[in-house]
């Protein structure tokens, strides 16, 4: 198996994730697509670490996973707050401030 296959997989995941963030209206789904992007990054890191047999790639991936968890926690809290105030979490409607 060649490195490129892994890179292509991660690039694909990355693209899907970005699409998810830009297109989805529901807050939670946007959070899920961000997770998708982060996992793409992890795949990238791990594959590079394996092929160049340097350990720091994996360490980096571990950190990314940990931080991603923290981020999701805060993100969900935010969305919960939004739901409590607005009764819906449609991102396109939160445009009180503009210009």
């Amino acid at each position, binding site marked *: 198996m060649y490195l490129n296959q892994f890179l292509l997989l991660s690039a694909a995941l990355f693209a899907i994730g970005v699409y998810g*963030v*830009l297109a989805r209206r529901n807050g939670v789904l946007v959070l899920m697509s961000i997770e998708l992007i982060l996992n793409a990054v992890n795949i990238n890191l791990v594959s590079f670490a394996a092929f160049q047999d340097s350990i720091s790639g994996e360490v980096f991936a571990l950190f990314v996973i940990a931080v991603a968890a923290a981020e999701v926690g805060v993100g969900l809290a935010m969305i919960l707050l939004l739901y409590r105030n607005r009764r819906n979490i449609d*991102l396109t409607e939160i445009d*009180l401030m503009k*210009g």
Partner: protein
Amino acid sequence: MMAELFIFAESASQSGLPLGITSGGAWLLRNAWLIPLLPALSFLGILFFGKRMPRKGSELGIAAVGIAFVLAVLTGLAWLDHRDNYHGEETHLAVVTVEHHGEISHDEHHDEHHDDSHDEHAASGHSESGHHAAHSSLAVSNTVTWFQTNGVDISVGVLVDGLSVMMLFVVTLVSLLVHIYSTDYVGGDRRYTHYFAFLSLFSASMLTLVISENTLQLLVAWELVGVCSFALIGHWWEEKPNSDAALKAFLTNRVGDMGLLVGVTILFFAVGSVLPDTFGSFSIAATNTVANNGLLSHTALLVAATCLMAAVMSKSGQFFLHTWLPDAMAGPTPVSALIHAATMVVAGVFMIARLYGVFFEGLSIGGSSINLMALVGGITTLVGASLAFVQRDIKKVLAYSTISQLGYMVLALGVGAWTAAVFHLFTHAFFKACLFLGSGSVAHAVHSFDMKSDMGGMRKAMPHTYRTFIIGSIALAGLPPLAGFWSKDEILAGTGGWGLFGGTGGNGSYTLMLVMGMITAALTAAYMTRCVYLTFFGEFRGHGDVHESGPRIVVPLWILAGLAIVAGLFNLPKGFQLVPDSFQERFGHYVEPVAGYFPTISHATPSWSLAIISTLVVIGGASAAWWYYFVKVEAASKASGKSLTELPNGPTTTYPLAKIIHNILDKKYYLDHLYTGIIAGGTKGPLARMAYRFNQQVIDGTVDRVGETAVKSGQFVYDKIDQLVVDGAVNTSGRLSSEAGGELRKIQSGKVQSYAAILFAAATVLAGILIVIV
């Protein structure tokens, strides 16, 4: 002895062109600057303490001018003594010219003592005959540093020679008489003190102008005199026409001053490039000397002379810049007498006389071709005389006559008759001042200047004024034996006109000038007769009782009238047998400098035949007018019972159209008119009126329109260019940036996903560009 940088005391080692100017001389000559200082101090005194003085400042003014007059006379005598028995101990100021401009030839000079006897009579003083450049001292010059720049000292000082002594005498005398006259004439005025303050300031600046040693000082005094005339013309500035007249006078003078400014600059640097170790010099003596000896390039002199001529034309009311002078009559009459007859207007003539070297070389007066100066003088005499005809206002008549006489002087200077011009200036000052003051006293009595409606038949009521006015007019007309005849005859002889009249000699034969001079002489006689008739003869048309003016008016009138009679004797022509040799041509002998700083001009030999012809022409002009007024109008007014001023159905009303075309061809018309005029007499009126209207609409109009166009263009420039273009550019750039701000704000749509889209798009686009570039 204070030596200037470029003119240094001539010592044996460096020889140079002898200027004939010594520094030092009698105490009075060295301290001639006291004369202008006195009126200046009195100006300040009156300004600050005038209100609190018993006679509200007038006594201080009269005292100052009186002392100045006495000093002027003493300086004159001291100068005559200095001129005649010069002992050669003062140091001669000689200009040294830069060697590499080729060797300057100057013949050997030796000191020559005059062994003449000193005659107690002021005017006489026999000196050696002939004019070879004896090493005699002509002028006394003392200077002190005024300011330094570029390492060179620019100095201010005093130059006392024949011309300045004569001018000092004239200015102080006329100013004194006018001061005395004004105490009565301006008696009740509410700004009596201010009037006397500015009168003293005027005298001070005129006296400074007269004795100024360099062109910069001349320019300073020239403009100061202009300001004083502005203040005095606008004395009653409550009424708009008075302040308009003052403004117009000052602005026209200012136009002329522009020429003076440019001329002085050109001369300053031209002389500077010739003299060693200085980049410029204002000194009149040096400029004249360098010009006489052909060291300056002809083009520079020509340009400078033309520019200075512009200044003369504006200040001395020559042809197309004369429009301010008649309007200047809006000022009080003593002011007109002093400023617009005797002193200020002759400043232009004085400047030509002072810088004669420059004009002589620049306009090549020597050659017989008609130069600019002669032409301008000639035209002005004719225009002045013809316009004087049609005036209703007695002062306007005298104003136009002054323009005409000034034209005479400029004409004389243009043809090279220097002494004749200066002598005419000398005599004209007296009789013109006498006429003006006379007209003032008449107007004072009648409270109006309008001859046609308010005067007539005043000879019985005001005998003194009448007699002095008659003497003045005869002198002005130029009938012998009064002053006018001698000076005018000298000028006509000076023109060196037709051979057959014997007036040969001069600097080339200027026939056209002689003809113009003759015509003007006739016209002058004619309009003065008209003026005398309308004022003093026929029935009194005014209202109220008329009584003779007080002594303070009549005494100056008589003094001036006396001078008008006596003045002529100063310069009797050369071959005049009736008088011993020593009395001939005293004026010319003393006033005309014979020195390095004066060009060598040839003198015309006066001839009897020319004198007789000119007298006949004058009598002809006078009789034509006399016949028209004293006979026909007198008869018509007796027939109609009321006092007429001109024939009711005279020729003027019959052919209006002809007159308009005619006017454009007036040159020739004048000549034809001269012949028919003598015969027909009455037709002169319409032409003058046409000329007057032409003058008002065309020349005067152009001056006013120039003013208006300047204002309109100012409006245009300000509204269009300044507000629209320059300011607009600034404002639009301001508006553009804020509108751009407005547009860019719209990108901020408020939706977080559009933000994320922008972020990602930017990142990818930038990456794409850089991948392509790197």
